């Protein structure tokens, strides 16, 4: 079983009467790229701020690398963060800003600074003052800061904000590379499910401070992908017909009454005729599948 990097237990945050986080329970395993999805004001940043100790929780608890939240001083060194907007000293260059934080983290090798800057594609602008940077460049520097100390766990709050499409694609590749090559666990938030879908392997949908759904990428694919839904009480018979007569194994038995077929999407009538020819009692047969955006909207509505 994978090591648990972050585990929250009924984590709650209140600002006077307003509940920003309401009994949040989630768990992130080593190697995950965990996507935190929610609309603006859903509680994503609040959750990240509590985990990084920038904000105090009202109730509940969390564990980072197995350490309780009241004993995180040493554990914090294993995480890299970019919370809200990237903030650096405007009159220092990118390299001097990172040097400042490198001294704080006890990094003596300046190569690490150059590596981080190179990874985010800021090498050419590394000596420019932070105040002259565009929003996209600032985001990249924020990510360079997060990966500066070769952390085991990176927390990125809406890191693709302000980036152009090529920049988004480059960062997506970078996140995957960090995850695969350096085995870094990543918690990444966004309000765009489509963006997170392309990098994350696990998702948490949050709305009004509550976790509405925690779902793996495979489960999400199943729930969203286009398919022919066959409702019948004879699922095992249908499976045999699909394999022997329609020559497909691209189907899934959901339960005793439902099979999802991912082939013959353009020719569902052939499926229907074949099943009828074999005396299958079909309750219903229809095409299904929704876009990620529609799925997100549906889940949010259900959560309400």
């Amino acid at each position, binding site marked *: 079983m994978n090591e648990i990097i972050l585990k929250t237990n009924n984590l709650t945050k209140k600002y006077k009467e307003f509940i920003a986080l309401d009994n949040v329970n989630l768990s992130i395993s080593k190697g995950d790229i965990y996507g935190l999805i929610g609309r603006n004001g859903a509680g994503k940043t609040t959750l990240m701020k509590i985990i990084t100790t920038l904000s105090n929780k009202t109730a509940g608890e969390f564990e980072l690398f197995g350490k309780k939240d009241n004993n*995180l001083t040493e554990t914090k060194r294993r995480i890299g963060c970019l919370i809200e907007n990237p903030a650096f000293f405007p009159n220092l260059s990118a390299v001097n800003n990172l040097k400042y934080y490198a001294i704080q983290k006890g990094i003596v090798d300046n190569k690490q600074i150059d590596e981080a800057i190179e990874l985010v594609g800021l090498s050419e602008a590394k000596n420019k003052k932070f105040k002259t940077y565009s929003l996209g460049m600032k985001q990249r520097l924020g990510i360079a800061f997060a990966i500066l100390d070769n*952390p085991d766990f990176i927390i990125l709050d809406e890191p693709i904000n302000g980036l152009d499409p090529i920049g988004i694609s480059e960062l997506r590749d970078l996140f995957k590379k960090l995850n695969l090559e350096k085995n870094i666990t990543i918690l990444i938030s966004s309000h765009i499910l489509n963006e997170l879908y392309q990098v994350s392997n696990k998702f948490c949908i949050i709305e009004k401070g509550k976790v509405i759904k925690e779902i793996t990428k495979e489960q999400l694919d199943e729930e969203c992908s286009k398919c022919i839904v066959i409702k019948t009480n004879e699922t095992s018979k249908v499976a045999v017909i699909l394999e022997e007569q329609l020559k497909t194994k691209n189907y899934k038995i959901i339960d005793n009454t439902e099979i999802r077929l991912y082939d013959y999407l353009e020719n569902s009538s052939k499926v229907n005729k074949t099943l009828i020819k074999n005396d299958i009692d079909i309750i219903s047969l229809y095409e299904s599948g929704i876009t990620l955006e529609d799925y997100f909207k549906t889940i949010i509505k259900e959560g309400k």
Partner: protein
Amino acid sequence: MLNIIKSDLYRIFRGKGIYIAIILMFIIIGVSVFLMSPGYIGTTVMIDEDTNQGMTPEYLELMEKVSKANNILDIREIMKEHAEFDLDKQIIGANTNLYYLFIVVVFIVICVDLSDSTAKNTLSSAISREKYYIAKVCTVMIIGVFMTLLNNYGIYFLNIIFNGKSFSSDFIEFTKYTIIQIPIILGMLSILIGIAFITKKKALFNGLTIPLLMIIQLILQGAITIFHLEQTIMTDWELQYMISNLANNPSTEYIIKASLLAIFYVIIFNLLGYYSFKKSEIK
């Protein structure tokens, strides 16, 4: 924690702010030494013969002659002809001026970090709030004491160069006065640190700290007048008077009381600052 202090020193000495503060300090020193008179920024200490400030009738007579002089060179001539006194001690008696330069130091070390949200980078992945607070206090105090020493010994040596030995005090004695001023300098720094951590905003910090010394004087003076209190409350324990008194042959009892008051300031303002910082959300 040591790394936080090192990183702050790295950042501060890469910026212009600290150098501007040091240049300003030397301009004030230079003017005071050349004019042979301590220069005060903002409110001035009233010369009171009843207080132990080394202001003799002869000195006051001399000041009257000086006030009638036409230009700076005449002033210097009059001073050199008619007087012989420890000008360096008098100038370090005006060290409350450093308060305004300390505002710059606290602003750069603490306010910029909290107000521009760069503190969140440090606090989210490098250090606890306790250590962060202590590191900031240490950084401010290191720079504050460094500037005080630079200021005092700058005054001492510039005074010897420009005005000669007859206006200069003994080096050991001068060092003693420098040392006994340090606790109240730390107290003054702690007031600024406390305000910085409570306000967390650059504009609010500046708005409160710049007029603070004048406001304290006005409040004290008002309280003395309204409640018919002893004037010595002002002349003994107000910051500007204290620093001046500590440079002018203070009694051992006064040094001890002043140091205790300084310790009180250090403890109270740092407790207030830390408590406010610990409870706050880092933006």
